[in-house]
């Protein structure tokens, strides 16, 4: 028998024994245990170390508010730091390790900090480490940083899956204790759609920890029958192991359901956890209450815990933390623990009650008007020193000490929309108040209704009122009056812990007050009180109360900090869901993707698209070889490029032309049917937004193309204009980017190639289908298609579009028909090279700060009409005499590298920001020119052709001499496109 602290009873399954290890040592526990309860059963109290002083620590609580018993759970890539032993469900094979200690939990060298605690007080860092100045970076900070943190990450990718989903309900009930169950029964019997969620793996809340009766039966029987009824109803969804982490706007609640955390590994195809967004018309917060400690000297030793937690361990988990237990309380609740434990045969050393008029116990001694003034025991409690009412002291031998300073309603979720709780003097506690999140009601202990009867009653009433349904009968239960007279700390205590994890003591609060950090916010930030992983659930009140006393104010005058989501710390993985790795964003494939893959194309991410970057052929060893070949072959004969990714927007309606005339800065009203026009659109602020073409297919039908990068943005902009600026216009827009596969067919032989597939009734000769023509055609014997005679490459070129499902076939056909011309597929690199050679602006030039003027298209901005952005583009600052103008850049020495992002400086003179003349936007090796070339923006650039300049790029360690040339390196007269 190793579990020497086991008691009779409880909800554990003694027939199922589970093996586990803690710091490598083997233990056994039972199904239904938590890691903490199983360790306590094995007489292990020491489970962790505190953050700053590395003080030995055991569990303070039996729930999610735990500050001390944090462990690294599991091993390998599943290692999970800072896991609360008090909520981790035991499973067979569980492995846990203590953390934040070196070399071992029992002997931790960093505990030396405790000896220097006089130095490491609140605010210590701000006053020191400043001398000598250079030491901070090199010496002090590295040491501080090395000591940081609690548990460690595995440094491996999380192997588990996470999911996300949506749920909807009439009422979300948060917490399945007595009030939550009553609220659920009330709503469910009235036919409402109910979700009942509880963070625990067992429903019943506090009832699981108590020996109360409901309707003269064990309370857990009533829980079981209530759950059975709820489970039988189709309108009820029960969600155990589900924490409501936050109350967000519009009645949306975040919930994390732990699907597999109680198992060694998630079952096949199951996620570890699921994030639910629950859309609830109403919510009833039945989150219960948290017991608050009392601060006294050395109140942090393993074995000292909240009295209610001792009771939970005894009644629910059938275990005690030690054979001899003492209680320190200021209220009747501490006596319950004594009585429950005594009934189970635990020796009660004494109940130390601060109240002179404390009740007497029948099976334990009560020291009335007494206080605990110190404790002993290095790695676990051995003795508690009591100051008795008569002034004498007495040593109590005990291995555990249950502390109760009363209870605080769990108001956390009521604060998530910045509502502030209000002070209830009778309870000496904050209760929900101020503005609650819309739709939220609070019931039970969370509202300050502490007795079981009161909780049951308020649960049904809250549901009845919130939903306008009938309350249900309240079963019989205890209704003991609540007496909570505040008692926060023992006079004279100084190393008395408030925030156990962050090592904030009464002394620190006093110092904070002394130095003027007196508001709650300052106290919290100066001392780190309440900033630990438990978010101050057990510590904030004590700190606040002491500050109030020091400031001579009442607690509500000092105020309270409000709680922020999440209610308990939440795995980042579940917030990310499946959007990770390759699934981070959807991958959009072009219609020719499979074909390109077969050809061995190299692909590149372009936004969410994957595009062929180049198509290497046998013998090519460097990407430049492929790209140069693609450019040369296209310019010499014919090349094909998939340009489906360009945004395509269908604009239809009687007012389509008027609409586009407003959108583009150049004129579109009079564009003839069957013609395409290049268009530049400006933002409201007069800056160039995007460029592309619009083809008029019919009087009331245009096809607009956008750049790949701006496809969504332009569409958004058009919708805005349509809905907000021209609401009365007859115009509809829709994105057809995915609906049409579109290929550029470019080069002197492009027409000849197309003539082989365009059905003969369509004349695509230069006369029948001149530059900038467009039309609906058919190809390959009747397949619907669209043809545009436009050119990005500067060659005779067309863009041909077919419905996407024919895209693959069309590409293959173009390739086979083109064999006689040595047709060459080209990718985005060659596309880029050719557009730079031709001086066409693209994303690098349309960078959101450039105007039509900068782009050399100033004259395109029509003065005869009002288009978006035209007015603001006239502002003086955008039209200065030395405004940046797009230019071409050529290295003087053809061997040298032109760097995009390099800055232009005059041939002589200083090289610094004050003498900056402009910058290079795009650069590429031009096989046509036989050197690298660039496009850039240069001050007064249009008047500086022929000037020699320096291109500097200190960040890539490069300076070269360049010549400013026309941006149109190839065919500046545009003869080829018209051929």
């Amino acid at each position, binding site marked *: 028998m190793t579990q020497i602290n086991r008691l009779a009873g409880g909800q554990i399954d003694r027939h199922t024994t589970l093996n586990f290890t803690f710091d490598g040592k083997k233990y056994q526990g039972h199904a239904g245990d938590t890691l903490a309860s199983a360790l306590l059963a094995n007489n292990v109290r020491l489970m962790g170390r505190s953050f700053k002083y590395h003080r030995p620590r055991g569990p303070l609580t039996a729930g999610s508010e735990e500050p001390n018993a944090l462990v690294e759970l599991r091993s390998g890539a599943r*290692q999970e730091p800072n896991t609360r032993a008090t909520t981790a469900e035991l499973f067979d094979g569980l492995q846990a390790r203590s953390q934040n200690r070196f070399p071992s939990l029992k002997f931790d060298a960093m505990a030396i900090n405790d000896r220097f605690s006089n130095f490491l007080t609140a605010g210590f860092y701000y006053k020191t480490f400043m001398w000598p100045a250079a030491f901070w970076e090199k010496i002090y900070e590295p040491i501080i940083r090395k000591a940081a943190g609690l548990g460690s990450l595995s440094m491996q990718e999380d192997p588990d899956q996470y999911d996300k989903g949506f749920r909807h309900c009439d009422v979300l009930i948060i917490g399945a204790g007595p009030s939550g169950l009553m609220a659920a029964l009330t709503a469910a019997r009235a036919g409402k759609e109910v979700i009942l969620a509880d963070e625990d793996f067992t429903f019943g809340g506090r009832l699981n920890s108590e020996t109360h009766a409901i309707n003269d039966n064990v309370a857990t029987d009533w829980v079981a029958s209530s759950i059975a009824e709820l489970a039988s109803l189709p309108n009820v969804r029960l969600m155990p192991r589900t924490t409501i982490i936050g109350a967000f706007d519009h009645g949306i609640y975040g919930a994390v359901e732990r699907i597999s955390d109680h198992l060694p590994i998630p079952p096949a195809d199951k996620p570890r956890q699921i994030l639910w967004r629950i859309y609830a018309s109403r919510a009833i917060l039945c989150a219960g209450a948290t017991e608050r400690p009392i601060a006294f000297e050395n109140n942090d030793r393993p074995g000292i815990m909240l009295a209610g937690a001792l009771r939970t361990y005894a009644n629910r988990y059938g275990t005690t933390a030690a054979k001899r237990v003492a209680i320190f309380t200021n209220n009747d609740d501490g006596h319950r623990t004594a009585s429950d434990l005594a009934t189970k045969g635990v020796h009660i050393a004494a109940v130390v009650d601060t109240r002179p008029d404390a009740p007497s116990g029948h099976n334990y001694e009560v020291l009335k008007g007494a206080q605990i003034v110190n404790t002993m025991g290095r790695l676990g409690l051995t003795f508690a020193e009591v100051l008795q009412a008569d002034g004498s002291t007495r040593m109590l031998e005990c291995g555990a000490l249950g502390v109760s300073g009363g209870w605080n309603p769990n108001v956390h979720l009521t604060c998530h929309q910045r509502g502030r709780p209000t002070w209830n003097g009778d309870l000496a506690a904050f209760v929900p108040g101020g503005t609650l999140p819309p739709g939220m009601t609070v019931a039970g202990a969370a509202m300050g209704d502490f007795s079981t009867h009161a909780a049951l009653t308020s649960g049904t009433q809250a549901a009845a009122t919130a939903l306008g349904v009938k309350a249900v009968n309240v079963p019989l239960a205890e209704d003991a009056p609540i007496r909570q007279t505040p008692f926060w700390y023992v006079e004279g205590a100084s190393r008395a812990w408030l925030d156990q994890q962050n090592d904030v003591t009464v002394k620190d609060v006093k110092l904070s007050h*002394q130095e003027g950090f007196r508001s709650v916010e300052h106290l919290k930030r100066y001392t780190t009180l309440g900033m630990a992983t438990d978010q101050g659930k057990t510590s904030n009140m004590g700190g606040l109360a002491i500050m109030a006393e020091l400031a001579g104010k009442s607690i509500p005058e000092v105020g309270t900090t409000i709680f922020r989501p999440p209610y308990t*710390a939440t795995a980042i993985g579940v917030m*990310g869901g499946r959007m990770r790795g390759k699934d981070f964003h959807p991958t959009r494939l072009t219609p020719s993707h499979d074909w390109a893959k077969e050809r061995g194309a190299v692909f590149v*991410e372009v936004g969410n698209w994957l595009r062929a970057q180049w198509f290497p052929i046998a013998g090519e060893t460097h990407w430049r070889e492929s790209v140069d070949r693609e450019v040369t072959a296209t310019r010499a004969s014919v090349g094909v490029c998939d340009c489906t990714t360009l945004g395509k927007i269908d604009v239809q309606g009687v007012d389509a032309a008027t609409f586009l005339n407003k959108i583009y800065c150049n004129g579109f009203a009079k564009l003839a049917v069957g013609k395409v026009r290049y268009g530049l659109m400006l933002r409201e602020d007069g*800056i160039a937004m995007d460029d592309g073409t619009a083809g008029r297919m019919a009087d009331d039908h245009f096809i607009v193309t956008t750049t790949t990068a701006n496809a969504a943005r332009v569409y958004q902009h058009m919708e805005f204009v349509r809905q907000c600026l021209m609401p009365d216009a007859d115009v509809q827009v829709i994105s057809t980017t995915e609906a049409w596969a579109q290929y550029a067919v470019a080069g002197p032989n492009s027409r000849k190639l197309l003539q082989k597939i365009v059905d003969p009734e369509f004349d695509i000769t230069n006369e029948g289908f001149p530059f900038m023509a467009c039309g609906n055609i058919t190809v390959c014997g009747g397949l619907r298609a669209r043809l545009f005679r436009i050119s990005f490459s500067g060659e005779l070129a067309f863009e041909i579009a077919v419905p996407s499902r024919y895209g693959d076939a069309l590409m293959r056909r173009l390739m086979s028909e083109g064999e006689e011309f040595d047709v060459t597929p080209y990718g985005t690199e060659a596309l880029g090279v050719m557009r730079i050679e031709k001086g066409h602006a693209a994303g690098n030039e349309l960078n959101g700060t450039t105007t039509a003027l900068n782009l050399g298209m100033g004259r395109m901005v029509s003065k005869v009409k009002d288009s978006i952005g035209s007015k603001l583009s006239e*502002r003086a600052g955008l039209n200065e005499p030395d405004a940046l103008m797009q230019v071409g850049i050529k290295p003087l020495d053809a061997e040298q590298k032109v760097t995009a992002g390099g800055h232009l400086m005059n041939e002589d003179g200083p090289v610094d920001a004050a003498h900056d003349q402009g910058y290079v936007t795009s650069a590429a090796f031009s096989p046509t020119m036989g050197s690298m070339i660039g496009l850039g923006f240069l001050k007064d650039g249009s008047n500086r052709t022929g000037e020699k300049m320096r291109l500097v790029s200190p960040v890539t360690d490069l300076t070269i001499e360049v010549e400013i040339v026309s941006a149109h390196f190839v065919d500046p007269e545009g003869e080829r496109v018209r051929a």
Partner: protein
Amino acid sequence: MRYSGFKVIKEALTGHKGWKPAWRDPEPRPHYDIIIIGGGGHGLATAHYLAKVYGQKNIAVIEKGWIGGGNVGRNTTIIRSNYMLDGNEPFYEFSLKLWEGLEQDLNYNAMISQRGIMNLIHSDAQRDAFIRRGNAMMLNGADAELLDAAQIRKEYPFLNFDDARFPIKGGLAQRRGGTVRHDAVAWGFARSADSHGVDIIQNCEVTGFRIENGKCLGIETSKGFIGANKVASAVAGSSGRLMAKANMRLPIESHVLQAFVSEGLKPVLPGVITFGAGHFYVSQSDKGGLVFGGDIDGYNSYAQRGNLPVVEDVCEGGMAIMPIIGRARLLRMWGGIMDMSMDGSPIIDETHIEGLYFNGGWCYGGFKATPASGYAYAHLLAKGTPHETATAYRFNRFETGHMIDEKGMGNQPNLH
């Protein structure tokens, strides 16, 4: 009271009885030469430099709540000077230099940590833009370093190099960038300003301006009227609401930005990382928490809280680039109100009302600007002319077209 090694040791050995309040808690006087509204980083820094550098006396900082409770205590503490445009880079580099000497200047350890910031690159176009930026930084005397993927892998081996949707192709590093303990900035400036005689008046909300004949004579507050020769607003996220009381409409929109911190973890991240293909940036605090954030919530709001979609978006970015954090837990999240100017750059200027000055429009990047903003604002208040590094931060730039739009997002409300 000066903090010194000697003092620290002495107090430790004598029970810390000798520490005095870091600043006084005075009642407002009826009239000041200069009133600064807003006890955030910028307001307190302005007071410090006004008193210490510009020798001004009779100054008050008026704060509606507790100093440091606004954005200065809510941000993700990143400092850097990796800007690109002429109007910005000299100012932010000036700020970084002030940070570098701040602890000695204030006699307060704000834990300025130049651990470096790394902007990851995921496409060729991004690289081109970062080269341009890095060059602009270096031409302005700041430091910048361009790294390739292999170099980044050496420094950050745990980033997603093998299974990334948007592969890491490099990064632009600024080694002098880093983080600062944000609260300590507010407290350090406050303590120093106070020691130079500045009255810091907390729990005093400015409810209006007394303006007569186009001249501002003082402020109405919850503690009554306080007169002043000059009134200077530095209320960041509250700019729109405060200046409305002077009947001014600002070229500013208010948005929520959220931030997140994980539970304390043993050190993993040496510096600051920004993910260039999603909304995620992260650093690790000296206490061990991963401090991270992403994009604004995307709707206009004065509510200091955010919503789930952005929480998810940010964590998705985090899991995409740094999948080791899946089992780390998000501990706390919060929101602050961003004073988003139309071009993303700030305003430090006089207004059309005589004696009324404005500092705002800091968007999500004003923390790093705190010292320079205070310095430049103090200069403007003391000398009547813009500081040499802040000449571009004028109201009229939207009218004249001299916008300073680093991101090229566009100078109109519906684009932010």
